[in-house]
């Protein structure tokens, strides 16, 4: 039963042209992708279009390599990259920084097997973020979702450039610590 299989197995089926596999991956990641698109494009119609584009591209040109990390990491990075591209094309002033998501090798299994898993994980991540000091949280979100550079964040928050870098780094390190067993095997 495809819906019971791991992301890697489902993805293998997708590469073979099994559209059921696409359906399963949509069930698992459709909402995450949509949320990310909505947050970054701030427009429901565009978010919908981009979600569609991202999934269709996955179908037509599958490039995920399970050895490089989780499907979530791959897919969210891809989505973010596409959202940035859309912004680049549609808003000249919006200079989004696309430096994230360098894929490295790893075996990591953390699949969003179903809606329940998505909700649980979402809650945990939200809680973890709520535990971050305000400045760290703000800086990280501005960088990740708004794609702002350090100098833009520094100007926006009226804090020194060096502080921005420190906050961002500490936010990530602390987040990892809190989410320890979601991140490690």
């Amino acid at each position, binding site marked *: 039963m495809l819906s019971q299989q791991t992301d890697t197995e489902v993805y293998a089926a997708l590469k073979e042209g099994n559209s059921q596999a696409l359906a399963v991956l949509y069930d698992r990641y459709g909402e995450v992708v949509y949320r990310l698109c909505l947050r970054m494009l701030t427009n429901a119609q565009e978010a919908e279009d981009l979600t569609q584009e991202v999934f269709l591209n996955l*179908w037509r040109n599958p490039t995920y390599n399970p050895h490089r990390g989780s499907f979530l990491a791959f897919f969210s990075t891809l989505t973010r990259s596409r959202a940035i591209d859309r912004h680049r094309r549609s808003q000249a002033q919006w200079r989004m920084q696309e430096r994230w998501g360098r*894929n490295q090798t790893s075996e990591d299994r953390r699949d969003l097997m179903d809606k329940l898993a998505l909700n649980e994980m979402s809650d945990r991540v939200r809680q973890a973020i709520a535990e971050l000091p305000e400045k760290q949280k703000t800086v990280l979100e501005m960088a990740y979702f708004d794609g702002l550079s350090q100098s833009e964040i520094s100007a926006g928050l009226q804090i020194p450039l060096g502080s921005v870098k420190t906050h961002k*780094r500490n936010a990530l390190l602390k987040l990892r610590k809190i989410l320890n067993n979601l991140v490690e095997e």
Partner: protein
Amino acid sequence: MTMINPEQTQELLADYVLGEVTPAQAEAVQQMLLDQPELQAEINSLQETLALLALSLPDSSPPADLKERILQLAETKTIPVSPQIVPIWRSEKFIAQLNLKTLAIGAVALSIIGVLGFSNYRLQQRIAVLENQNNLAKIIDQSSGYNHLVNLHGTDNAPQANGAVVVMPKNEQVTMMLYNLPPLSEEQIYHLWAIRNGEKIDCGQFRPDAQGRVIKELPLEDVMMTSTQLLVTIESSQPSFGGTGTTVMVGQI
């Protein structure tokens, strides 16, 4: 090479994952990874942590029918398409006009380009050597400027007709794909017109094949880039001042 303590290492790796290192630092990290492969796990867990950020966003769901639409579009072609041209829609207006039907026709049109493999698409050759989506997006951005896909619909004079025109400025050509065009007599011919400021400019003429199909490349006229509408009309095949014939297809740019 100065030795750094574990804490500094951790900070450097975090900065690396966050894209906040100088090229020199990035190189240093690559070197560290060669010397201490176990640091890979560290980088990875930071990477995965970052990926979880997307989950923190507020609950919001895409429309219920999006899944079905995606699956339908995925099934639309039975011919597998190798990594090919992705339409780059530049203008906000154009994106706003997108709806499912136009996307479906566009998808079919582009898949046909892929299958027919027009070899003089310079973009196509570049895409063939690229490995991942990120680079693909960057290269297309650099080289193409603007690719426009204009969908054409049949008027009451030819309700079954449909098709699309792909405008590729960098290649200075336009590829037109029209289907279900009514057959013509000897004295008739189809013309493509671009409309700008109420003015009709002739962009080419053609006849359909036995299946009512036209797949043709035309030179790109500058006027097309600034026109608002495309028309296909039936004209007399005798030379004359054109533009008085019956309109069979219309497309909004």
